[in-house]
């Protein structure tokens, strides 16, 4: 894994429709908050990593140029990394590797998106080729719904049971978001609301699907020496894993999702985790779709294959459950895509440093964060801990 690396500061904007600020101003909010959290100034930053979704999302290409000033990149080396939805984890890994290599001591990582300004589905459908996949595109929901259908079929999961569990996941996340000052969607809802909501791509309904959000997140990575000097309570990086899959959706089995499974396995090996359900205290799973969240639980070894709905229905992943998932309300309630995967890591870091406020899991010491991207193609996992 290289040298030890810690997170010494995180910053998030208030997410939602942010037409009160321009895109660079939005990004600066997160950077400023992270610098303040770490007690640093821009001159302390040795390198910057930036990431967003496809540029058409906001109508400006190579956005790291547009907000060069907002991410403190003047006079510093800068990298941009894009892997669709998993961008947030990819840029975090990039920052981690930069510091772990010993080439820099303090690196700033910034992810952002301003989705209200363009058309999210129209932009995202351009990640598909124009000849084979795009003509049948039903946007992101279409891809994820086909995956969920395949999963239910393969493991003989009755549709009613999956729907009941999906509705409970929706309720849990929306309830959790009420405790998160940064969250976008803050509504009180019932299981019945989720089960009867408008159908987007059958069986996925409105409350099973993430919103589009404006928002940014910044995380500061530091070497062991600097972290111990600067930060009273750093969050240590315990493991990182990332895997890709073939381009064409039909070429790998998405019901057992090899990239998600292998990314987690790689991170667990580094962190020395054998039984994730018992050893992890909290997880921030990238959950733009309730049904997909259950597939992730299975891929990450939180429960046996095909038993995601059973574990959900017995409350395993609620705030009071054995392994609380997404105390932040998750991607389901807040989704500025280029930031979403980094928000998962920032939230995990807040948990293991006891700074998560009303959404804090008592005594959390080990946390998993994750993001998924592409046409079900990429998965990234980062595990953070309170102890080096």
């Amino acid at each position, binding site marked *: 894994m290289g040298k030890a690396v810690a997170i010494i500061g995180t910053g998030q904007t208030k997410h939602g429709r942010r*037409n*009160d*600020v321009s895109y660079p101003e939005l990004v600066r909010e997160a950077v400023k908050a992270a610098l303040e959290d770490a007690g640093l100034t821009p001159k302390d930053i040795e390198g910057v990593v930036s990431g967003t979704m496809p540029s*058409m999302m906001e*109508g400006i290409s190579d956005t790291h140029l547009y907000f060069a000033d907002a991410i403190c990149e003047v006079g510093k080396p800068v990298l941009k990394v894009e892997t669709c939805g998993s961008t947030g984890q990819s840029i975090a890994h990039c920052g981690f590797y930069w510091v772990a290599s010993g080439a820099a001591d303090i690196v700033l990582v910034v992810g952002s998106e301003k989705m209200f*300004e363009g*058309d999210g*589905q*129209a932009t995202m*459908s*351009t990640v598909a080729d*124009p*000849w*084979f*996949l*795009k*003509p*049948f*595109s*039903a*946007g992101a*929901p*279409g891809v994820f*719904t*086909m*995956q969920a*259908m*395949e999963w239910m*079929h393969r493991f003989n999961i009755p549709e009613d049971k999956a729907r009941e569990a999906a509705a409970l996941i929706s309720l849990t996340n929306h309830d959790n978001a009420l405790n998160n000052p940064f969250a976008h969607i803050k509504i009180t809802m019932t299981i019945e609301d989720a089960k009867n909501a*408008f*159908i*987007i*791509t*059958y069986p*996925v309904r409105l409350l099973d699907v993430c919103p589009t959000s404006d928002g940014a997140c910044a995380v500061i990575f530091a070497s062991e020496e600097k972290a111990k000097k600067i930060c009273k309570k750093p969050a240590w990086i315990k493991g990182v894993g990332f895997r890709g899959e*073939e*381009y*064409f*959706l*039909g*070429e790998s089995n998405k019901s057992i999702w090899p990239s998600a499974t292998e990314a987690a396995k790689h991170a667990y090996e580094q962190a020395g985790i054998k039984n994730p359900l018992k050893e992890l205290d909290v997880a921030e799973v990238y959950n733009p779709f309730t049904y997909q969240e259950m597939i992730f639980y299975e891929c990450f070894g939180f429960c046996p294959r095909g038993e995601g709905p059973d574990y959900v229905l017995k409350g395993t992943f609620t705030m009071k459950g054995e392994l609380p998932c997404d105390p932040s309300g998750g991607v389901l309630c807040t989704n500025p895509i280029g930031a979403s995967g980094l928000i998962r890591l920032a939230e995990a870091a807040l948990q293991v440093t006891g700074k998560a406020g009303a959404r804090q899991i008592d005594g959390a010491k080990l946390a998993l964060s994750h993001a998924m991207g592409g046409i079900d193609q990429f998965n990234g996992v980062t595990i953070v801990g309170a102890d080096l």
Partner: protein
Amino acid sequence: MADEKPKEKPREMRAEVTVPYEMAVGSNWHRFFEGLKEEKILGTKCRKCNRIFVPPRSFCPRCFDDNEEWVEVGQEGRIETWCYSNLMFPGQTLKPPFVPVQVVLDGTDMGFQHRIAGFDLSDFEKVRALVKFGGRVRAVWNKEKKGTIFDIDYFELVT
């Protein structure tokens, strides 16, 4: 005054990006689309892992070997997975509702993306009663061929 609140919300200004492309499909996919014009579905085979790819691949993504063997595959197959789409967004080719499907064509080893049609799709409960996992479907050809994926108009349910 610096501390005075603005009377109006800052405005949004319209911007638009329109870019046409002429993209090379390469000889591999060219051959596939020429095949569709003759109502043939062509795939390529990896000599190392023996998998047959539709859409054809000029190389195997897992073995990274050149795929040099071409095969004509079946025009029927089984439904690997499907969904029912109600979602509309700019730039979409098909108007909702429609039924995207992954079909494993006879003689191939993976899902091929297309759509199921040929009956009333307006009521999803009716669609759900008809479309089954593992169910058989058959390619229905467009009379007019353009050498695109829509030379196969849709897949119909085989009953």
